């Protein structure tokens, strides 16, 4: 081990990274000294994960350089970063569940006996693992299988593994997101002990109290740029939130118009799902667009999926008002579809589209009313339905028969949307509908959503992009840790306020 002290351990100089047209990181400069816990904060999509992926060798930057103890280094892959002394511990630690704790700690450099067979030296492996586990204050039997451990213990195993590999910089990506208070406290003790040893830590988190409890300095990222790097002792939570959101006032979209809210179409009452959602109640009226804000893991997707019946609720009730004014209970996905509820899911490639199928088939996948007669598909009507969606949503495709995978991201998303906007649509649930679509298509999707609301649909939309919600929604419901913590009418919904509620800071 080199002597700690003198210069910075790691200097990040002018790092940039683009994904297509999107600049994920632009000219990011950060320094880290040995024995420092350095927090990295920012909204979803600010570039934290990209930066950490670059530092741990998972991604290569397009520009800029990395200096490790003053020497320029190139991190070609995760192994070379580890060899240098940089290890990343993911939110869900990447361990092999069927192997023992000791094997996981040593995996990739198992100690072997001499001789041609290179048999694993189990005794030495156990001793080495014990030593590494002691460093993270984890009292775990080395022979225990990892799949029997909880998340907190797995994290410690992952950190022990990093230390065993000689890590001098450990990157932790939201390590406390699924830990209890006690586990969090225990993790902090471990991290402080490591700091005493001179190990440096990059600590990614949204939770400002945690940063205060743990970190020496914080770097705030926004839109891929460093907004500020300050010692935590010299800044306030308000200043940090402002730095993260970059907006003191909600940006009012001029195109946003007044829509008269009609009767309640969707009613969610006390919906819960063990460990994920707790007693969520919500109403959405005809013509209304309601936003769901919250951090990653706050339960927004889970809520939408549960309302749609794709995930079962353990408690509570979801009701949708039919065209004749009567209420219909929605328990299963089939109920939801029959009641005119549609879901545009989070990941359109994995959940939304059948890539090999045509535009028409993808739109017609929901078999809209009137397109089947005794099990037989009425292809003509199905095509009419698809053609209408293509026309109203201005989907750009060579033909209705073009495979949907040949379309651009925005047009693919419009195909998913197109399924649910037929004449019988009542309620539309959207999960990150504009993720990964370009700016133009995004504006267009927003316009279509407003138009659909004007047509009388009730729209509930989850987005990690606050500006999107602020521009689009009449109300914003904020979720935190599976609960709906607050509902803000448009007038009171500002970026700092929403972020404050989402992070639970006062």
């Amino acid at each position, binding site marked *: 081990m080199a002597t700690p002290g003198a210069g910075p351990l790691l200097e990040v100089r002018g790092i940039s990274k683009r994904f297509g047209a999107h600049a994920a990181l632009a000219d990011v400069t950060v320094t880290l000294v040995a024995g420092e816990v350095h927090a990295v904060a920012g909204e979803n999509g600010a570039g934290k994960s990209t930066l950490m992926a670059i530092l741990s060798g998972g991604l290569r930057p397009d520009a800029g350089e990395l200096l490790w103890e003053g020497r320029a280094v190139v991190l070609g892959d995760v192994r070379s970063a580890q060899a240098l002394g940089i290890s990343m511990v993911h939110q869900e630690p990447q361990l092999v569940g069927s192997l023992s704790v000791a094997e996981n700690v040593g995996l990739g450099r198992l100690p072997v006996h001499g001789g041609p067979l290179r048999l694993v030296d189990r005794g030495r492996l156990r001793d080495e693992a014990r030593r590494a586990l002691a460093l993270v204050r984890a009292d775990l039997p080395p022979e225990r299988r990892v799949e029997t451990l909880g998340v907190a213990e797995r994290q410690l195993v992952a950190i022990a593994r990093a230390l065993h590999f000689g890590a001098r910089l450990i990157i932790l990506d939201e390590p406390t997101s699924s830990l209890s208070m006690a586990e969090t406290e225990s993790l902090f003790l471990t991290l402080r002990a490591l700091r005493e040893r001179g190990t440096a830590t990059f600590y990614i988190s949204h939770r400002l109290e945690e940063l205060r409890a743990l970190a020496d300095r914080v770097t705030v990222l926004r839109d891929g740029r460093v907004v500020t790097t300050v010692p935590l002792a010299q800044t306030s939570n308000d200043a940090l939130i402002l730095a993260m959101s970059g907006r003191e006032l909600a940006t009012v979209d001029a195109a946003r118009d007044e829509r008269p809210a009609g009767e309640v179409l969707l009613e969610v009452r006390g919906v819960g799902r063990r460990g994920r959602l707790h007693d969520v109640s919500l109403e959405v009226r005809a013509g209304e667009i309601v936003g769901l804000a919250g951090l990653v893991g706050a339960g927004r997707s889970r809520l939408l999926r549960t309302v*749609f019946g*794709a995930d079962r609720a353990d408690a509570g009730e979801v009701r949708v008002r039919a065209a004749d004014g009567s209420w219909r209970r929605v328990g299963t996905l089939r109920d939801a*579809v029959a009641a005119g509820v549609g879901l545009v899911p989070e990941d359109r490639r994995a959940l939304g589209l059948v890539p*090999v199928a045509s535009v028409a*088939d993808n739109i017609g996948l929901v078999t809209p009313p009137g397109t089947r007669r005794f099990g*037989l598909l009425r292809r003509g009507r199905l095509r009419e339905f698809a053609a209408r969606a293509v026309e109203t949503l201005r989907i750009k495709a060579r033909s209705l*028969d073009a495979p949907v995978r040949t379309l651009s991201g925005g047009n693919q998303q419009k195909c998913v949307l197109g399924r649910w906007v037929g004449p019988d649509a009542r309620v539309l649930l959207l999960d990150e509908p504009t993720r990964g679509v370009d700016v133009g298509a995004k504006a267009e999707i927003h316009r279509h959503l407003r138009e659909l609301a004007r047509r009388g649909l009730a729209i509930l939309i989850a987005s990690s992009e606050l500006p999107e919600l602020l521009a689009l929604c009449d109300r914003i419901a904020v979720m935190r840790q599976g609960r709906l913590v607050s509902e803000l009418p448009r007038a009171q919904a500002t970026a700092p306020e929403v972020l404050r509620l989402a992070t639970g800071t006062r």
Partner: protein
Amino acid sequence: MSEAAAVAMPAEARATWWQRVGPLLGLALLCVVLAIASPHFLTLDNLLNVLRQSAINAVMALGQLVVIITAGIDLSIGSIMGLTIVLLALMMRGGTPSFLACVLAVLAGVAIGLLNGLLLTRLKLPHPFISTLGTMNIARGAALLLASGVPISGLPAGFREVVAGSAFGIPSPVIVAGALYVVGHLFLTRTVWGRDLYAIGGNREAARLCGIPVDRRLNLAYALSGGAAGLAAVVMAARMNSGFPLAGSGAELDAIAAVIVGGASFFGGVGTAGGTLIGALIIGFLRNGLNLLDVSAYWQMIVIGAVIVAAVCIDVLRQRVGREA
């Protein structure tokens, strides 16, 4: 699709076009080569003979296609044939009217297929490879037990004459297979169920989120596959004039080969009844041609293996072309 292909042939249409026409071209090429190589090939007798020989595999392959479209696989169809053929022979020997026995044999196939589906959808076995590998062994064991390991002979002459005979000069097995393919094609292209199977194979989660009852449809697919094997067993029984408990050993592999050579994708969501029929014919003509040319059975295996690999290579290349579009 035809409109898109006719206009400018962009890459995506070219890929679809290849997928549809590729196997047909392969079959035509094969026939031309065989016709030149052997004077006996292009005789009516020989052609009818190939069709008759291909009919059983074609029927099995149609069931397999339905499962492969859902991104699944059914390894048990050969054993289902073995079990249903024994059941059929036992019923007939016991005096059950032939027609009723045939219907019951097909239903027995459906039942075992449904079991395959339920193992997958209810017990949540991780992959149909495993569940159908299990039923493959169970069904074969049951067939051998029921038949005490020996063929059951002495089927009614009337049954044999009808099912193994011919009408209007066309062998009955060919009529059965032809009729089944017409129904299969309509099922896959015109019904909600067929369309749902493609969607499930193309993206199971997306299909579910569109309200498609995925489990029910998968049960249906495996039941149909089992039923096709039962129907194939009926034809086989008539041809062999006995219920041989080892009938259909390895037939699942020939069926899978026909489906893949016929342009279906092992990844699911792609495949047509017409393509599979052509695939079964390619394999049938290949066997016949190699026999006519006096190629040894060992070499035949090597050639057929090479054709399967080549067909999949074409599938992979086609996908690459499609992706670049």
